[in-house]
């Protein structure tokens, strides 16, 4: 785990960190959808500029942020070749029955660009928003569903707890796999079935520990009087400040501008 993983939160005091999670999630959703609505070069450049501005505001380490794209390297490669070979157009070079078309190159590159932007925006959201805030934001955004008896609060709680334990389990998997390697376990050779079986010495201890943690957490929550009551209050309430309103206005304006340029080209 020697890089900034997509989904890793780093506490800091940047303007983007301080923003209300509801705004950030809405904006992130917008920035993830927009690349699929933009088809001009100008629009794409403006979108990249917008995301770069957000990354600068978050004071995110640019290189580490770019490297999160590597996590979808194979998917991006697949998408590129898929579009590259299936887009009809004028062949530039033909060689042994395979022809390279300008349209294919452009379509493939567009897909890669969209996937990369998607990953970077998602990384930027999780980089600046703690898992708890994300869950609170989700709860607030899906709040209206409570009316139709959808258990939004409970699901948000389950999500919060699950997110909280992700790094814990990553750390545990690392330690256990090292401990088993020290006992001569080999996770890197053999066929797929054999490799799967070789993982048993890791997964059994992790499950045992997960069950133990679940039980301890349940007891701890019970001891603190936790009930899944309908009207729970909370210590930190989400509230919009002027900075949130400005951010909301700015992102809306930028989005509309980019969409407008698409129409008027």
């Amino acid at each position, binding site marked *: 785990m020697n890089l900034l993983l997509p989904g890793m939160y780093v506490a800091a005091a940047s303007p983007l960190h301080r923003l209300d999670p509801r705004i950030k999630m809405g904006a992130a959703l917008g920035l993830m959808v927009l690349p699929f609505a933009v088809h001009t070069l100008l629009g794409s450049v403006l979108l990249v500029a917008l995301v770069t501005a957000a990354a600068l505001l978050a004071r995110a380490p640019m290189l580490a942020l770019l490297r999160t794209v590597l996590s979808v390297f194979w998917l991006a490669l697949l998408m590129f070749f898929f579009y590259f070979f299936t887009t009809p157009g004028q062949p530039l070079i033909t060689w042994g029955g395979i022809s390279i078309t300008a349209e294919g190159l452009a379509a493939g590159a567009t897909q890669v660009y969209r996937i990369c932007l998607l990953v970077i925006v998602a990384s930027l959201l999780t980089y600046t928003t703690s898992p708890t805030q994300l869950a609170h934001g989700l709860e607030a955004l899906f709040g209206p569903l409570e009316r139709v008896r959808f258990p939004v609060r409970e699901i948000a709680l389950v999500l919060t707890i699950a997110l909280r334990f992700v790094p814990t389990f990553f750390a545990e998997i690392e*330690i256990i796999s*090292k401990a088993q390697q*020290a*006992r*001569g376990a*080999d996770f890197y050779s053999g066929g797929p079935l054999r490799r799967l079986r070789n993982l048993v010495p890791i997964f059994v*201890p992790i499950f045992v520990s997960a069950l133990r943690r679940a039980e301890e957490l349940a007891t701890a929550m019970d001891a603190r009087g936790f009930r899944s009551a309908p009207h729970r209050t909370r210590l930190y309430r989400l509230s919009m400040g002027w900075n949130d309103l400005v951010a909301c206005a700015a992102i809306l304006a930028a989005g509309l501008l980019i969409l407008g340029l698409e129409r008027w080209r």
Partner: protein
Amino acid sequence: MLIQIENLHYIYAPRTPLARTALDGASLELRPGERVGIVGQTGSGKSTLAQQIAGLLAPTTGRVLLDGTVAHKRTPAARAQRRRIGLAFQHPEQQIFEQTVFKEVAFGPRNLGLAESEVAERVRWALEMVGLDQAVLIERVPFALSGGEMRRVALAGILAMRPDVLILDEPTAGLDPRGRRDLLARVGSWQAETGMTLILISHHLDEVARLAERVILLAHGQVAADGPTRLVLGDSQLLRSAGLSAPQSVALLEALRTAGWQVRTDRLLPEQVVAEISQAWRRRSGS
């Protein structure tokens, strides 16, 4: 096995906002059959050093040589050397996964590719070494055992590989005082019986004083001191500068000295402290 550690640096999560230097230029040499204690504050790099010696982490810079072979390489030669090292992590009982005690202890020996009869022989030997009654336990489910028994099963699983070097990372953490004493006495006898190199990582200085003949003090990822146990653990100023407090015996003798007694303060074991105090007492009543 000769272990040479040369100018070892290790950084966790390099080039990210979470980068943290764990080892910052550590150099030392461990000779075959030595009993070495590694002490230091939390975060001083003890556990990282242990994993480096076992070849589980690749150094950022510098190197670890096991009988002349670079430890972490993925070559058959390096793997063969790594198999001679047994490493027990903190709370080793958390690595238990098999359905019976026998299978759990046999996991390591089987990975060594030994014949089944040899495996069974080693399992019996290892369970005896950790003081578990195999007639009762060998077919039991390890998860149904007590915490202390599970720890011993886990340690047996490592001992059964008959390592030339045994690294124990906080082996007594979470045990009751009696369990601690019992385990430490056993660790000493394993070393005496097999002649292996013993590396004990602990921040219980009293435990290290009992077992180690040489102590390496780590501070901020560097070797702050390396020498005979009495010289390192008897030097309360040195320990304090590395963020540790002196062993209880040294603290007691220092208090006596402040109160005007003529005692040496570098006595580590309870029996040595008693001898020192009774000598001083005799000198006092004699004059």
